């Protein structure tokens, strides 16, 4: 019997992941042992401390370029940059999740098991303190995302995918109001997500088959083996293409790219708004982090084969997002379609197989995440007695009622539209420049044309807010509590600063833009 050799594990490099998952477990214990009235404070503090601790470790590790845990985890520039991005965005999202002063009891349901629309349900909606399980759930999800962007083989990636997806499905179902919508969203997300995971797993199996038979190597799904197999494998390339396609479907689903985007508007609309913000920012970073690693590291040898297909997906995504955004009448659905279109722009960056492409995409992810979280923070504030007023017609004349918040939202919309002096413009230039430089000028043209279409829905909201007269139905903007204010200030300032002086973050992304193989 051969002796089992244990892989060496660099615990310091894995510390961010371990901290998040460890604190998530502690969070579960807190649910069991800490009295109810203290739980919210304890949980929020714990979760924020975990995120900050993990972020500190990421910063301390910032010079690491290594493979660890039997080559299952890569701690390199992109990993650390994206982990840092996820943690910063997650901290903002946690602030939104923890907000209790805007609505009595917070944005989450008090008893998730109560039948929706029943008298009990109405009672809990009146102001019972919201469930605090959201914090361990969110912490688990963040931990999963940290593994997802660091995974150096397809199986680890799959497990990470499940670790961050399952809590998200639950989180979507926990809205305090409009619970049927929320539960429907969670169900949809879960069903379609399960399909996508199955596709991903099937893809892993096919790729495993493809890697067998290379002289001097055993079969495996770590990226080094896959990379070698792409050029050397004696197996039929059909396996490779089918495997790549199935993997891409799994990842593009999470990234909300067309034609795998159909869940996005429903889920974004139904989920509690802080969770929507969390998904729009952090899930995007995680999904694109994985896409970057899979296509830049594992399959880089097949770039000629996947670029046209993924390019077509990118164009379709941008088109679908932009065109359907025009017809939306609900602000959360509008932002959902805008997020789909942005997934298209990000794909344009992913398809530039260069350092610029990698750093541009990473810059885009951070810039977009910060803006979109701020935008959803504003959405949580515009409300009336029945909760958030998300129908666009209700936003008419908001500029008169609350010029300050309307101005902030206008600025964020201008950023989404890519007007200069906002981070949105800089990130578009970053990915388009990289794409053109690597010969994908056609993607740039498609991106520019869809940006024109996409400007219209944003502008419509601006017109609604400023140029329309306020009606009786125009809600007021609730004064945000300290937590939401903090998230809002961070998001808006970052949108401005990254638009005016993007050089430091670009430098950081540039320095990080190299994968360890």
């Amino acid at each position, binding site marked *: 019997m051969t002796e089992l050799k244990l892989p060496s594990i660099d615990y310091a490099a894995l510390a961010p992941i371990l901290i998040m998952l460890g604190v998530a477990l502690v969070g579960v214990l807190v649910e069991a042992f800490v009295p109810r009235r203290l739980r919210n404070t304890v949980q929020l503090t714990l979760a924020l401390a975990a995120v900050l601790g993990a972020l500190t470790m990421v910063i301390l590790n910032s010079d690491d370029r290594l493979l660890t845990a039997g080559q299952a985890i890569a701690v390199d520039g992109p990993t650390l940059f994206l982990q840092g991005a996820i943690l910063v965005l997650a901290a903002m999202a946690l602030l939104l999740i923890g907000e209790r002063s805007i609505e009595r009891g917070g944005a989450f349901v008090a008893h998730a098991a109560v039948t929706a629309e029943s008298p009990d349900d109405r009672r809990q909606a009146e102001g019972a303190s919201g469930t605090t399980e959201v914090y361990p759930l969110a912490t688990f999800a963040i931990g999963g995302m940290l593994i997802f962007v660091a995974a150096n083989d397809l199986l680890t990636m799959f497990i990470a995918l499940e670790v961050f997806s399952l809590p998200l499905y639950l989180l979507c179902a926990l809205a305090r109001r409009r619970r049927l919508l929320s539960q429907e969203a969670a169900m949809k997300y879960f069903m379609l997500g399960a399909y996508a995971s199955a596709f991903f797993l099937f893809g892993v199996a096919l790729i495993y088959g493809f890697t067998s038979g290379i002289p001097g190597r055993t079969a495996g799904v770590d990226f080094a083996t896959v990379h070698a197999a792409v050029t050397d494998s004696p197996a039929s390339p059909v396996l490779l293409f089918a495997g790549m396609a199935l993997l891409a479907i799994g990842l593009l689903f999470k990234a909300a790219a067309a034609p795998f985007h159909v869940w996005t508007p429903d889920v974004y609309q139904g989920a509690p708004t802080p969770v929507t913000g969390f998904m729009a920012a952090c899930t995007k970073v995680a999904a694109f982090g994985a896409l970057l690693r899979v296509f830049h590291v594992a399959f880089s040898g097949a770039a000629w084969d996947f670029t046209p297909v993924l390019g077509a997906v990118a164009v379709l995504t941008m088109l679908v997002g932009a065109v359907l955004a025009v017809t939306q009448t609900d602000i959360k659905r509008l932002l959902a379609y805008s997020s789909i279109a942005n997934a298209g722009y990000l794909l344009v960056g992913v398809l530039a197989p260069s350092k610029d492409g990698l750093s541009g995409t990473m810059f885009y992810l951070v810039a977009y995440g910060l803006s979109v979280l701020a935008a959803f923070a504003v959405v949580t504030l515009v409300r009336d007695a029945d909760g958030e007023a998300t129908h666009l017609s209700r936003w008419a004349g908001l500029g008169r009622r609350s010029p300050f918040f309307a101005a902030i939202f206008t600025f964020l919309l*201008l950023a989404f*539209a*890519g*007007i*200069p*002096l906002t981070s949105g*413009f*800089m990130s*578009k*230039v970053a990915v*388009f*420049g990289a794409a*053109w*430089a690597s010969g994908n*000028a056609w993607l*740039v*043209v498609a991106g*520019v*044309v869809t*940006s*024109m279409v996409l*400007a*219209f829905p944003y*502008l*419509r909201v601006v*017109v609604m807010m*400023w*140029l*329309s007269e306020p009606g009786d139905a125009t809600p007021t903007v609730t004064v945000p509590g300290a937590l939401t204010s903090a998230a809002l200030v961070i998001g808006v300032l970052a949108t401005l600063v990254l638009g005016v*002086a*993007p*050089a430091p973050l*670009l*430098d950081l992304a*540039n320095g990080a833009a190299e994968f360890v193989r």
Partner: protein
Amino acid sequence: MSNFPFLSVLTVAPLVGALVVALLPRRSPELAKQVAFGWSLLVLVLSVIMWITFQADGDRFQFRESYPWIPNWGVNFTFAADGIALVMLMLIAILVPLVILASWHDAESSKRSVPVYFALLLVLECTMIGVFAAADVFLFYVFFEVMLVPMYFLIGSYGGHQRQYAAVKFFLYSLVGGLFMLAAVIGLWVVGGKTFDWQALSQVDISTGTARWLFLGFFLAFAIKAPFFPFHTWLPDAGGAAPAGAAALLVGVLDKVGTFGILRYCLPLFPEASRWFAPWALALGVIGIIYAALLAVGQNDLKRLVSYTSIAHFGFIGVGIFAFTTQAGTGAVLYMLNHGLATGLLFLVVGMLIARRGSALISDFGGAGKLVPVLAGVLFFAGLASLALPGTAPFVSEFLVLIGTFTTNKPVAVIATLGIILAAAYVLWMVQRTTQGTLNPALTEVEGMRRDLTLREKVVVAPLIALIVLLGFYPKPVTDVINPAVRATMQDVGRTDPAPTVGSVQEAAK
């Protein structure tokens, strides 16, 4: 003094002023107006000093400044001005204080904040100065796009009838052009070796096919901005809906960014493509001259009428640029200045009339000259300047454009000349229907119409009238500044003026 960072200070100063004005309490509109006016005067003084410091026979680009911005992409805050930019900067500096003075009571009629209106005007001034002063393509693009935002709110929040529709149309049209230009800017950056510096890019050899596409990207943005036929449909709406002061800046300066962009970016960076596309551009120009003039004749709304006259004038400027002779080019640049003065004046005077009458429809006027003789006189003068009567400044430029074009392209020059006749038709008919003839009895009922020009309004129109007359008789100070820049641009395109031969002189004499 020549080391003073004129251009960056000029760009930043209005922005600082805008912040000051915006932070003033909403309850003290008078103070906001005074501060805004004072600030714009400051900019004017600075611009005058810059004009004096500029050496007409010196380097093509002067007052060059450069500070790093985004080193990863080779983006710098580079400012530099040639003669063409200098003239446009001067035009901005002159127009903005007058527009602020002319709009003294405009914002009060809307329910919006008065200080914000003046702050927006100053922000607009900052972006307009920036766009002409930039010598870095990226920086130029940033100002080009940001310029839309203050104008959008000026039209949308403070405009008249159909302001929402006009504001959105203006924004979307400009954004569409801008985004095509963004693609071209990125392409230029890639083929130019990852630099945005204008001077470095003008040395780069770009393959013919690529250059033509990039040219199209830039040209489309500028043609929409200018606007040339058939991209002009936003201007009458925007000009008709904007408050008169903003409209004067819109057609007086903002639209010049289009023609300026063609001169600064399309021609020198893509000379071969410019020559290749020149026949098409000339055709657009000529169609614009005739078509817009015909539409202007048929307008019943004063502001829309003036907007259409502008489109016709932009046709002239386009013809002047793409004729590729120094004479025509100088004429075109001079036209940009003179059109800013003449049409700016026309818009402001028309605005004064409309503010009195409470209506922009020509049919609501009639014989107004009997009630407000001085105002009617100024309107008549502005109209005459606009139709390029000899003795007014626009005549010089129109004449230069026509003779410059005649040497290289006779049919275009001949057709364009027809535009002058149409100009006479729309101006004189408009003046006749509003201020002359029998007095419209309804006018006497309107209280505003009993008040002739106030002192403030006289102060607004006097400098413009003086400049129009002065430059009509003695344009040399301006042409001296423009000429070297235009000659350099024409050299960039690779066209030299045809030598005057006896034959052509005789032909011209026939």
